[in-house]
């Protein structure tokens, strides 16, 4: 650990800063990097590749120092598993080996795990640079590195690298001047502008930097800073085609909706800082961080921190009661400060609702499709929306059971709502966007149901297949120049690479797999979520609906994803013009697809013959302590997550998940694959529901009615007041000022100037009349002198007494 503590902050810090360097370079020299900044693409891609290599090195170091097994599982358990594998003869087939491994882990590992006391995850926390110290409160640029951070770094940089390569192909249009057919100028012409290749990569670099900063952040203040940076980058990227009205509107919408969530987050931050006096996650130099304040050892049960208890008991303290430890304990038992803890949790979650597009702030994400497709891939998998889920995961120890229930319900609503909308959407990218919203709902649902691991697991698997899906969609759009699925069809013959990698993505997101044997990555994570909620429902039967939402969502996911694939790639071409024009994308675009599809298949698998798996790695970062029972709401009790791995729960969840996926698949096949059923017919049959869904549950209209209209109305009133009263007042003031100035001007011109001019004219005329004396004749002057002297002499003689002359 000591070795890690000295190397990891440096390595990951570098991995974090390299994209910033690239961003700075492109900002300064971007427009001079070749034609339309073509070199900027190489700079940014090189930077993110460097980051990826550094992250990979860190991951390797972590594995070699900490080992691949979670803390709670001692070596003995690992041996048991090994033995179990050996008994089942895993040498024959790699595939069998995987299934056996997963199976064995589920059946043996976790019972043993349960017997052990909770162990806090290993982490490295420290400070790079102190920003400010206010008495006992301080803000630093610090780091908090645990297995989750290391995994996130590897995942984010890997996906971002693939997307960078892909984008170099996808954005080639920007290398020369562009006529944007979607923008009509006032003179009726289309907008003609220069290519902005370099600017795209400039934003991408900043985006990666912000996301990595968010992941490595050691305190919530830093999280907040990078949170906002991610937000502004998404704003730039969504509004990349800024001249298009729809794009700039979408960018504004994303930004404003996120602001709404961030408002809640700031409240949460204030609650934490005001009462705890620290923003740090972990303990740094003996100063306790939030986690150890909220969950003091040795049981790591959720405890209202002393600071919050004292904040809640201000009245008692003001009345003279000294806050001794006994007194604080008494207050704590009377639920003092628990409300503040809930406020903190809900506040932080508000931010996550905005970033991760949860109900009711999900409206921005589908509109964000206005950005170029690589951006959608990045935003929807590894960066922006992952940030919200990541923060919920990171902040998990602080959430009270009540807050988690809110999270779970928010997730369930989001999941169901988005999935239903995705069924009717025809824009290929919008289907994927709603699918993202829905999957994010899954993650939140899992986290809220006490499934920390299930939620984070799904975050990782989803990142791979969703970026894959988006890039495939981008490849399709690149080929047919339309987003509308009804104009596609039969494309698999024209673009086999795209079609089959996308099929992999679809299978992964639908959670395809052979139960208990093997499956795509989504199979495992969806399984874990369902199992968790089955376990949760068995403890809290009132909340069983969450489980049904998860199961129903799985069927819907499978249905709309296969619908997408069938409509795009299968059947006969519907638009022959588009079909004839279609072609496979260049290599730089489909090679990343292949790489990602490999990960989409196998990221959840164990590495053969080792204990190395994403599952084990994530388990290392599991926050210490269980969620436990609610304080305000006694009946709410969270089962420990490992209970969801129990045999009967696991089997049921797997069967339900698989059958849900199959039901969805069959439905899609019936409607869109084989045309046994007519989709048009069904649409007519359920036309009210169809209209409701196609209009996205009228959320935009609802918000328009609830928020936009009243705001517009009030603004109109204010603007009228402004125009009629304030403007009138200002105008009259201006009028009077002008009148006074005009009078002043006249006075100045006539009286003052007149006086001066008269004086000047007078002086002039006197001078004129005197100039005649100046004859220039010397002799005359001499005469004057003589006559003058004599005259003076006579005068003096006449008027002075002769005393002067001695008389």
């Amino acid at each position, binding site marked *: 650990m000591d070795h890690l503590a000295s190397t990891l902050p440096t390595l990951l810090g570098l991995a974090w800063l390299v994209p910033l360097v690239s961003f700075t370079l492109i900002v300064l020299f971007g427009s001079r990097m070749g034609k339309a900044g073509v070199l900027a693409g190489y700079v940014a891609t090189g930077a993110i590749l460097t980051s990826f290599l550094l992250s990979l090195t860190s991951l390797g170091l972590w594995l070699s120092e900490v080992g691949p097994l979670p803390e709670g599982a001692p070596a003995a358990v690992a041996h048991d598993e090994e033995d179990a594998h050996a008994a089942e003869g895993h040498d024959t087939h790699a595939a069998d080996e995987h299934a056996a491994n997963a199976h064995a882990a589920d059946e043996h590992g976790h019972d043993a795990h349960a017997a052990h006391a909770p162990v806090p995850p290993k982490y490295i926390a420290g400070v790079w640079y102190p920003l400010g110290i206010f008495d006992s409160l301080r803000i630093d640029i610090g780091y908090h590195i645990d297995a989750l951070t290391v995994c996130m770094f590897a995942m984010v940089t890997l996906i971002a690298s693939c997307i960078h390569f892909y984008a170099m192909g996808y954005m080639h249009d920007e290398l020369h001047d562009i006529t944007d057919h979607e923008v009509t100028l006032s003179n009726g012409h289309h907008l003609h502008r220069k290519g902005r290749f370099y600017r795209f990569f400039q934003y991408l670099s900043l985006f990666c930097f912000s996301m990595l900063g968010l992941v490595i952040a050691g305190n919530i203040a830093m999280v907040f800073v990078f949170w906002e940076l991610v937000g502004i980058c998404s704003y730039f990227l969504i509004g990349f085609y800024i001249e298009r009205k729809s794009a700039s509107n979408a960018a504004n919408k994303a930004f404003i909706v996120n602001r709404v969530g961030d408002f809640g987050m700031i409240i949460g931050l204030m609650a934490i800082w005001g009462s705890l006096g620290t923003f740090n996650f972990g303990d740094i130099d003996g100063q306790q961080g939030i986690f150890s304040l909220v969950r003091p050892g040795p049981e790591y049960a959720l405890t209202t921190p002393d600071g919050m208890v004292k904040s809640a008991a201000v009245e008692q303290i003001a009345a003279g009661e000294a806050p001794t430890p006994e007194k604080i304990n008494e207050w704590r038992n009377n639920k003092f400060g628990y409300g503040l803890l809930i406020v903190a949790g809900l506040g932080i979650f508000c931010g996550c609702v905005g970033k991760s597009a949860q109900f009711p702030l999900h409206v921005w994400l589908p509109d964000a499709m206005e950005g170029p497709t690589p951006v959608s891939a990045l935003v929807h998998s590894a960066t922006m929306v992952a940030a919200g889920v990541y923060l919920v995961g990171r902040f998990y120890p602080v959430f009270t059971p009540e807050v988690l229930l809110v999270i779970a319900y928010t997730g369930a609503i989001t999941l169901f709502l988005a999935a239903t909308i995705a069924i009717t959407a025809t824009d290929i990218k919008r289907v994927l966007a709603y699918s993202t919203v829905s999957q994010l709902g899954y993650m939140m649902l899992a986290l809220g149901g006490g499934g920390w691991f299930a939620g984070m697991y799904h975050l990782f698997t989803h990142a791979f297949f969703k970026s894959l899906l988006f890039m495939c969609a981008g490849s399709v759009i690149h080929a047919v120049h339309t987003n509308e699925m009804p104009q596609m069809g039969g494309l698999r013959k024209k673009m086999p690479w795209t079609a089959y990698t996308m099929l992999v993505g679809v299978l992964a997101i639908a959670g395809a797999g052979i139960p208990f044997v093997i499956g795509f990555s989504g199979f495992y994570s969806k399984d874990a979520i369902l199992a968790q909620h089955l376990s949760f429902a068995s403890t809290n039967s009132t909340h069983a609906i969450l489980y049904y939402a998860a199961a129903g969502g799985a069927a819907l996911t499978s249905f709309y994803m296969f619908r997408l694939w069938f409509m795009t790639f299968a059947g006969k071409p519907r638009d022959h013009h588009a079909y004839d024009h279609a072609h496979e994308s260049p290599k730089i675009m489909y090679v990343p697809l292949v790489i990602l599809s490999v990960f989409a298949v196998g990221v959840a698998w164990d590495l053969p013959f080792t204990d190395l798996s994403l599952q084990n790695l994530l388990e290392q970062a599991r926050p210490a302590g269980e969620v436990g029972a609610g304080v305000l709401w006694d009946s709410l009790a969270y089962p420990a997550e490992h209970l969801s791995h129990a045999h009967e729960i696991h089997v049921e969840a797997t069967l339900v998940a698989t059958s849900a996926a199959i039901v969805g698949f069959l439905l899609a096949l019936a409607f869109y694959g084989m045309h046994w059923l007519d989709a048009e017919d069904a649409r007519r049959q359920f036309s009210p529901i169809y209209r409701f869904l196609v209009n996205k549950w009228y959320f935009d209209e609802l918000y328009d009615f609830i928020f936009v209209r009243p705001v517009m109305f009030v603004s109109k009133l204010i603007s009228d007041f402004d125009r009629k009263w304030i403007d009138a007042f200002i105008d009259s003031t201006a009028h009077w000022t002008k009148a006074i100035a005009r009078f002043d001007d006249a006075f100045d011109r006539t009286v003052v100037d007149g006086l001066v001019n008269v004086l000047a004219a007078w002086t002039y005329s006197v001078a004129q009349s005197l100039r005649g004396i*100046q004859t*220039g004749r010397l*002799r005359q002057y*001499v005469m004057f002198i003589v006559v003058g002297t004599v005259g003076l002499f006579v005068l003096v003689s006449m008027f002075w007494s002769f005393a002067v002359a001695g008389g």
Partner: protein
Amino acid sequence: MNLLTAPLGVTPLLIVGAVLFVCGAVCMATKRNALGVLMGIELVLNGANVNFVAFSNPTLRADSQFSLGLDGQLIALFVIVLAAAEAAVALAIVLNLYNNHATVDLDRADELKG
């Protein structure tokens, strides 16, 4: 009284000075020739010099026992030096006047008139 032996009073000297002065002044006022005017100036200065010398006579001074009475003579010397210098400068001006106008007639050099 023997005019040759009787001590000479100031009056005759003042008369001589006045005559010289008036002659000079008249010469300055009437001569159109620049050189003539310069001569007139010399006469005026010499008229003044005579007065200075006359007034420096020890017999005229209240503190005659203690004074050498040289003040007037010294001033006269100064005036002579000054006159010489002034004459040199004035002659240079006259030469320039001649260069520019091919004449030394002062009445024709009236460019500075108002």
